């Protein structure tokens, strides 16, 4: 089981590295440095305004909230997957060893994070909350003990889970109560209380650790955790594991092509719904349109705004092209008694309508950007001509080639 853990850990770390490359690209690292620098600068300036002589009533609640939030990082990476419930079930007893390694690794990372958090908070604890250095250490110790308690709670859930809401409230209420005591009465009592909680929970968990493993919960938790991570990576690059399903968006139904009988233009019906309900297309359309609107209204130089409008219109159509072949893999596209030429016509109609909506929005952005009526009219004519060119000519050429 140790081998299994180490093998899975290696694969997992390799994957994190692979996607990490896309996240920590040069641009992002530069931006991150600037951001961190700005935050550090602001923080140190803020600290300078504090004095040991003044009493800040808001300091303790703020620190309490920060510490409780800090406790949420991080959860346990168990690296289990769906097939495990079938293949590893006979090895259930040995899973305890596996989990021990998993917990150990996550504990190490989590404690490092907690300690870094405490270190960053230390000057504020001293100058804002007016704790002595010793007391800061005591609070730090309390935080660490709470994180270990957190892990014990997680361990408990893997065997004989308590009600989920019950556990979530414990994870918040206990630290809040203990920190209230620590800050308003005495940090040492807080420490003792947290220690007792930990020991009590530890004792309880030891008693139940012979119970069978709660496989479905274990697997669900890990799936959700990995989904969160992949969703974050999906902001920077295409992650195959993230397949965003279609969103219903009932409120947009009235704007879509209605079913008409008789008609051969079924692809108007189908593709309009795909464009609106599939985040793959609706997402990029909305983003491009919004960025274009911001740019057009912000740019002062008229001809530059026009160029931007033309460019973004082209980009919108370009990004819309894959929609034509979106259902190519669906066998019914080939079985339905509908000629391919209608498919192309419908796609062109749809593109024209989408582009017209965008054009109107661009014109409104121009108005916001204080264009004169004459300039708006010229922009309208330019965009109109581009619309016809793109939807009638460009699409036809581009799709015949693909």
């Amino acid at each position, binding site marked *: 089981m140790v081998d299994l853990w180490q093998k899975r850990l290696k694969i997992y770390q390799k994957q994190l590295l692979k996607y990490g490359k896309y996240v920590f690209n040069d641009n992002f690292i530069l931006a991150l440095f600037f951001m961190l620098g700005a935050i550090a600068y602001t923080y140190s300036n803020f600290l300078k305004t504090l004095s040991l002589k003044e009493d800040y009533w808001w300091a303790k609640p703020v620190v309490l909230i920060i510490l409780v939030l800090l406790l949420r990082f991080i959860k346990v990476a168990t690296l289990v997957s769906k097939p495990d419930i079938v293949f590893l079930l006979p090895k259930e007893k040995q899973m305890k060893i596996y989990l021990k390694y998993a917990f150990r690794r996550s504990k190490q990372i989590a404690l490092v994070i907690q300690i870094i958090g405490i270190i960053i908070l230390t000057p504020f604890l001293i100058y804002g909350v007016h704790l002595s250095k010793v007391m800061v250490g005591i609070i730090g110790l309390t935080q660490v003990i709470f994180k270990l308690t957190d892990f014990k709670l997680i361990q408990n859930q893997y065997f004989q889970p308590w009600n989920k809401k019950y556990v979530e409230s414990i994870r918040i209420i206990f630290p809040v109560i203990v920190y209230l005591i620590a800050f308003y009465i005495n940090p040492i009592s807080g420490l003792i209380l947290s220690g007792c909680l930990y020991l009590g929970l530890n004792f309880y968990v030891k008693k139940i650790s012979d119970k069978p493993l709660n496989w479905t919960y274990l697997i669900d938790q890990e799936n959700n955790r990995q989904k969160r991570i992949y969703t974050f990576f999906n902001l920077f690059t295409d992650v195959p594991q993230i397949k965003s399903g279609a969103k219903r968006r*009932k409120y947009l139904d009235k704007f879509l092509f209605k079913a008409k009988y008789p008609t051969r233009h079924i692809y108007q019906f189908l593709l309009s719904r795909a464009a609106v309900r599939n985040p793959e297309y609706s997402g990029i359309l909305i983003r491009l349109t919004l960025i274009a609107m911001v740019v057009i209204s912000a740019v002062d130089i008229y001809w530059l705004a026009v160029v931007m409008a033309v460019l973004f219109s082209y980009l919108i159509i370009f990004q819309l092209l894959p929609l034509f072949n979106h259902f190519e893999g669906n066998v019914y596209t080939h079985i339905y008694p509908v000629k391919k030429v209608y498919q192309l016509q419908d796609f062109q109609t749809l593109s024209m309508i989408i582009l017209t909506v965008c054009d109107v929005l661009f014109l409104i952005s121009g108005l916001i950007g204080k264009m004169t009526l004459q300039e708006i009219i010229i922009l309208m004519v330019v965009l109109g001509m581009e619309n016809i060119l793109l939807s009638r000519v460009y699409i036809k050429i581009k799709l015949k080639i693909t």
Partner: protein
Amino acid sequence: MIRIEGVSLDDDPQRYKEKIAYIPETPILYEELTLKEHIEMTIMAYNLDKDAAWKKANDLLKVFRLENKIDWFPADFSKGMKQKVMIVCAFITNASLYIIDEPFLGLDPLAINDLLNLIETEKKRGAGILMSTHVLATAQEYCDKFVLLHEGQVKAQGTLEQLRASENSQVNASLSDIYLKMAKEG
């Protein structure tokens, strides 16, 4: 050259395709369309009469207990429900030929019964049904002719009597017996 009611794919693809309804083994659905919209798509694609088709659709939806899910995404349904959606969409077409791939997998006994009734009704209407299945007992009970495949080759075809004769099987041999004997002899 395959002809359906005299029309081949080369002659008139549109008329040819209008005569066929297909139910795949694994449900193939539009992720972005609701159940209602799937039916609307079928009606538009096959150029059906709107009122007649919706009447039949509503009857079928009631039979398969899907009528209150008409505004949902079938992509989110269970496997059995998805298959029922495929069945509903296929059987409102009044096609001349139904091609049904492994229809019994994933359906509960009630739904299997309902599907077989539907097939019977279409048979009486004069439609043809080409069905592939491994459930030989049910096939024997409901089908008129059989084509037995083994290792990708057509090994025998005909009615049950013809198969019994050509495969030198016993007088009361079941389809399963005939097939196993044929498969073992290679």
